[in-house]
């Protein structure tokens, strides 16, 4: 079996006196889709940002394949090209159209010619179903379209792994589906994905593993069936109950997000 794409070892991060991550370790295998869930403020975003070093961890190591990202000698910009990141609030560049958003890093980082970049960007826009919106500015797009453009922007770099930080939690309920659909397709194509999300339907249907993060540590890590039917801790069951209360039973026994 090939080695893991992503390996996280004993990550620690504190903000002042509050310890946010207290020794987090896990691996993600090629093509694997791992969903991270956990209560608010438990360090999920911090964990993702420690992986691509947007937030440098205090302690612990991260590898992308056999490159140690946390090594001071590693060219972090080079590594980040291979780690896509999708944010809760999209963070599209507001002065650029959707397609220019996708093209920018292609020309500035990958040094493609504008024509090459445009062609590549168009391909990605097609993947996320935004060809007809390519020339619009972020402000002219719906939330779902914005997030799909942001996904295209990351995909254009041909990343080895994609990090998603609650990609649908800023969206109106009726727009969540289109983004999850794109992510599902991506997973189907074999993309390695690490997804922070409370969309239990998505987790149940698409993920290979679910990690439950609580108080900065992993308390469950296993396949979704085990997670939903037989969690190790009573606390997990309680949290799942709360999620169902909050978001409805989107991931009812038979999968499909939408109940109706």
């Amino acid at each position, binding site marked *: 079996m090939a080695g893991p794409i992503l390996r996280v070892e004993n990550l620690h991060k504190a903000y002042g006196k509050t310890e946010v991550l207290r020794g987090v370790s896990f691996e993600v295998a090629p093509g694997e889709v791992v969903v991270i869930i956990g209560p608010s403020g438990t360090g999920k975003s911090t964990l993702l*940002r420690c992986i*691509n070093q*947007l937030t440098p961890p205090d302690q612990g190591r991260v590898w992308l394949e056999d490159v140690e990202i946390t090594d001071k000698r590693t060219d972090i*910009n*080079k*590594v*980040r*090209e291979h*780690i*896509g*990141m999708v*944010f809760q*609030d999209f*963070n*599209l*560049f*507001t*002065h650029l159209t959707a397609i220019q958003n996708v093209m*920018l*890093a292609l020309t*500035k*980082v990958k040094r493609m010619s504008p024509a090459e970049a445009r062609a590549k960007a168009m391909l990605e826009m097609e993947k996320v179903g935004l060809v007809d919106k390519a020339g619009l*500015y*972020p*402000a*002219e797009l719906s939330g779902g379209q914005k997030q799909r453009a*942001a996904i295209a*922007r*990351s995909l254009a*770099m041909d990343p080895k792994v994609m990090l998603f930080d609650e990609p649908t939690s800023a969206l109106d309920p009726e727009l969540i589906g289109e983004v999850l659909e794109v992510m599902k397709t991506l997973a189907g194509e074999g993309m390695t994905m690490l997804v922070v999300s409370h969309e239990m339907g998505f987790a149940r249907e698409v993920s290979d593993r679910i990690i439950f993060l609580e108080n900065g540590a992993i308390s469950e890590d296993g396949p979704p069936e085990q997670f939903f039917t037989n969690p190790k801790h009573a606390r997990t069951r309680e949290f799942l109950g709360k999620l169902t209360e909050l978001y409805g039973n989107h991931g009812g026994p038979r999968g499909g997000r939408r109940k109706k």
Partner: protein
Amino acid sequence: MFRPARDHRLDLSLFLRSLKFIAPAIKVTVLLTVFALTFGLVFGLALAVARVYGNRFAATAAGAYSRVVRSLPTLVVLYIFYNLAWVAFRVGGVAAAVIALTACTTAYQSEIFRGAIQSLGTGQMAAARSLGMSRATAIRSVIIPQVLRLAIPSWSNEAAIVLKDSSLASAVGTAEVFRRSQQIGAANRDYLTAFLAAGLIYFCLTFITNRVLDFAHKRYKLKT
């Protein structure tokens, strides 16, 4: 200086003659303003970037410069830098006046740009870095293009202020609009008419500046 006589009457032909006398200095006022604004834009942006993204030393130095300059009367800053320009580079005249005006507007523009950068939030930088851009590339290709657009309304205001403050350069001997109006006022023993003429010229220049920048704002503003 003398006051207008009790029976002072506005003399239209004198007003027109004053305008005509002052007119050649419009070029000087415009040049002073354009150069000071342009250099101030470059240095002000640099200071703003240093304050937000620079290391502690750069941020502190940039902040201190802005605080000190903004705490002094513009005329005092002007005299100081006018003299500094001579001591340091042996330049005087209009060049020194440009340096002095630049020193002032740099401080104010750095505040405008710093505010704009901070209003962008941290997400834009995070997104740019996550795509593999270096900090410098992110600042150049993502932050600054947005900051410039966001800053246009405040910048338009600053442009009007610099235009008006360029009259202070008369105090260091630059033959700009205000200086010329003093001269023609003295020659005719009628300052009121001369200053009204200067006033009309400043009004027109300010009006045009603001209109042009309003247009730029409409054309380039970030859609939200």
